[in-house]
């Protein structure tokens, strides 16, 4: 996750000669506070289970995502086809699980990359000022005014044959700008705070100050942005796939599966939509729970995470 790289490594705990029972660095403290948060732990366990489901799920069925069961087209959920089949006879379970693999990776990686670069560029622009700032702000504005969809369509021929992972930088490239601007604004105020000045006068290097003092203090926005980006990336990916760019038939992603199933949402074949859509909801829910927990753990003002 992008959320603050906990500063400094954990200071050794439980030194024999010290009377202090719990001396620990920020990383350990944040982890301890995170663990106290039940929903956050549910989210974390849920996400691990979803990953397990995505990568171990194929073992539960003998159908693969590309197999076509001509005998059982438009079948409802059965013992053989857990999530039913579509018009052609694709096994929805195999398709969902297969799509999840890609979507989970795309969602998390895109969020990591776009929130990460937004944080990096935003803080650097504000902290260093001068030419750094001019160039970064100019770049941000440029990406904001260029219609991203048009760019993607223009660029797509160059990536026709490429691996689907190319989608990750492509989507990230057009989703960092607004956060970056917000981050820059927040950094401008934090930069003037005395604790940042204090660190400078101690001789702490600039990037360490950014990592240790600035990023944790803007972590709320970064975490919220990250959790939103996961969902947004999965949806964007399906949209791009729809345009024939990225993941194309017979390969599937969660986005394409949901897209195909959407028209059946209110028909007898609801299962074509409901199952993959609930998986998407679960992914986003888990990521949000983790994000909330992390935000509370990092925020000393939250009461949720403090010891009682």
């Amino acid at each position, binding site marked *: 996750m992008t959320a603050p790289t906990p500063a400094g490594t954990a200071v050794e705990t439980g030194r024999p000669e010290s009377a*202090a029972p719990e001396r620990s660095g920020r990383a350990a403290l944040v982890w301890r506070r995170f663990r106290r948060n039940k929903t956050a732990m549910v989210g974390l366990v849920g996400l691990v289970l979803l990953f397990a489901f995505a990568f171990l799920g194929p073992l539960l069925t003998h159908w693969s995502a590309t197999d076509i069961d001509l005998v059982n087209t438009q079948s409802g959920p059965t013992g053989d086809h857990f999530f039913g089949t579509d018009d052609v006879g694709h096994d929805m379970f195999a398709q969902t699980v297969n799509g999840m693999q890609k979507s989970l990776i795309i969602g998390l990686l895109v969020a990591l990359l776009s929130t990460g670069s937004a944080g990096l560029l935003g803080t650097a622009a504000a902290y260093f000022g001068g030419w750094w700032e001019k160039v970064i702000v100019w770049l941000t504005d440029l990406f904001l005014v260029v219609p991203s969809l048009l760019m993607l369509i223009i660029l797509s021929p160059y990536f026709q044959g490429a691996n689907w992972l190319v989608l990750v930088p492509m989507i990230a490239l057009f989703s960092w700008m607004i956060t970056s601007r917000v981050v820059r604004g927040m950094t401008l105020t934090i930069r003037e705070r005395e*604790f940042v000045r204090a660190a400078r006068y101690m*001789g702490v290097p600039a990037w360490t100050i950014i990592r240790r003092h600035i990023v944790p203090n803007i972590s709320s926005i970064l975490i919220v942005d990250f959790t939103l980006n996961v969902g947004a990336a999965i949806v964007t990916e399906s949209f791009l796939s729809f345009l024939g760019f990225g993941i194309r038939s017979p390969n599937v992603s969660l986005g394409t599966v949901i897209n195909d199933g959407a028209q059946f949402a209110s028909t007898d074949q609801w299962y074509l939509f409901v199952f993959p859509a609930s998986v998407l909801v679960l992914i986003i829910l888990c990521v949000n729970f983790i994000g909330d927990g992390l935000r509370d753990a990092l925020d*000393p*003002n939250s009461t949720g995470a403090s010891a009682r």
Partner: protein
Amino acid sequence: MSQNLLLPHSAGRSGEPARTEGPLLSVRDLNVTFASEAGDVRAVRGVSYDLHPGEVLGIVGESGSGKSVSSMAILGLLPDNARVTGSIKLDGRELLGLNDKQMSKIRGKDIAMVFQDPLSALTPVFTVGDQIVEALTVHQKLSRDAARRRALELLDVVGIPDPERRFKNFPHEFSGGMRQRVMIAMAIANDPKVILCDEPTTALDVTIQAQILEALKNAQELTGAAILMITHDLGVVAGFADKVAVMYAGRPVEQGPVDEIYYSPRMPYTIGLLGSIPRLDASGEHGRRPLTPIEGNPPSMVGLPDACPFADRCPIATEICRDSEPELLAAGGNAHLSACHRRADLQSGTIPIDEVYPVPEIPEAELDTVPREQRAPVLAVKGLRKHFPLMRGAVFKRRVGTVKAVDGIDFEIREGETLGLVGESGCGKTTTLLEILELVAPQAGSIAVFGREAANLSGRERLEMRKDIQIVFQDPMASLDPRMPVGEAIAEPLRTHGWSADRAAARVAELLELVGLEPYHAARFPREFSGGQRQRICVARALALNPKVVILDEPVSALDVSIQAGVINLLDELRAKLGLSYLFVAHDLSVVRHIADRVAVMYLGRIVEIGDVASVFRAPSHPYTQALLSAIPLPDPRKERERERILLPGDLPSPANVPSGCRFRDRCFKYASLNAAEQARCRDEDPVIVPRPDREDHAAACHYADALQVV
């Protein structure tokens, strides 16, 4: 000030107040409770007092003692979740229970208010004149013309020069002191019976504070109003109030005539407060009397037990203090009340007042015995200058002027020495500090640490040098990263300078103990500490690398007095123990008098007077120093009444527009008394700082320097 004032009922109301007619404002058993998540916060618990016409009641207390809430209750300005019980009578009329519309008729007319922050109390989008006119026409039927005339008159009364022009100005065009004058003008606009002043001078510099208090006094004489003065500053109250109520944990714990409270306090909290303020008029050897801090922190106002709320911090608490809360009862004659179970012992002298608090031992520094000349200089600043260009224009920037923030200053700090750098806001203190801390070549002049020029350092050497020079900032909340556990914050300088995690952790524990905290506090976040503790943490961080010089930028001005004393003692003790040198920047001269060996007074980017503390304070030679010292209120009512105050006219000029010759001459009272030829010298010749002829370590930058005792 205008003499022919057209106040409607000024006749018969000025002069000696008639005390026979019964109280003007009578508060009885006032209770204010706020509902909160954690339970009911009992912010005010049983406040009772009477205010007679023309009287000044000072309500003193630390933050959170309920002093502001109790006065907001009088105005009916508390939020909706406040439950107010008791009785507030103005001229016999009950105010509690009146609805907002009825209260609006009283607010601003019978009871007026002067707030702490005059910028947020004035509307930024209307001119000052319009706002006064509005205050007038809301309560009085006046024609526009009459209201305007009246407003101009009021501006004149409160001492705003050129009211005709200032009438049309917006609040942002006024300085802080001027805005507060406007607030006073608005407060007295309708000839109120009571003026509530909530920390009216806290946000202002001392010389401006003196002006404002003077303006308030004038306003009171003109209107004959009673004043309720809420403040944390015992000095302000001493000279201004007739009666004092000391509040603690939502209750008045001692109440009585001002002299009684100051000279024969009957409650340990009051005694503690008085003992914890550093005094300008301190006598004794070196002027240094250790301060007696009050240990601990005020209690939480949620679920207070039936015990004296001060018992945990009180050195003379006994069983009974923890079993029941003392009532506010008579403690000696003259309407002197005290809420203390041991008031009788304090009154009879069984417990002498000076012995209530143990006097802390401040160790003598070894270096103190070495004469100053034989000690090595640790920080030498010569001719330091920092000018900022003043730019105009959006696309094509052009230089339209120069802000001379620091304009050539010299000083030297020797081993084990504390130099106090004092001056009002905008005089260049902070710029000086920041220039020193950058450790690079200044625009002009030189900065040398241990004889090494900052200008010639390589990056690595500069990093090394940072070990030796550290800083403690003013606001302990802002200077600690709220998201970083304090252990990590203290370890930061250590880790930066390559200490291993193990060694750093051990050092953090050691440092926490050194500043009076516990090693297990390391895993907590700054917000879990009180202001005083946070400042201790900042001190610990500054000391982590065993620096030689610590720069203290107003280290105690954000703290309550009782807490402040503890931090000052700590700094004193650490200096002696570790042989530190301090550059102590402050606007509070009493604190500097207490802690510093030498003092430098800054005015508009220059040092105007420098020298040994005792010498400078006893015989200040520069008119500015004299005015500055005389402006500071002493927590001693009798001395305060006898003192002549030197009031400086106007505000600190902008450093972008420094007067020719002597930069102080515009405001100098001495300049005004000189003849034309002498004045010409002040106008044309910039005075240099020269040693005073008859003194050892004392220099002043004035053509006509002459000692004058003002304290």
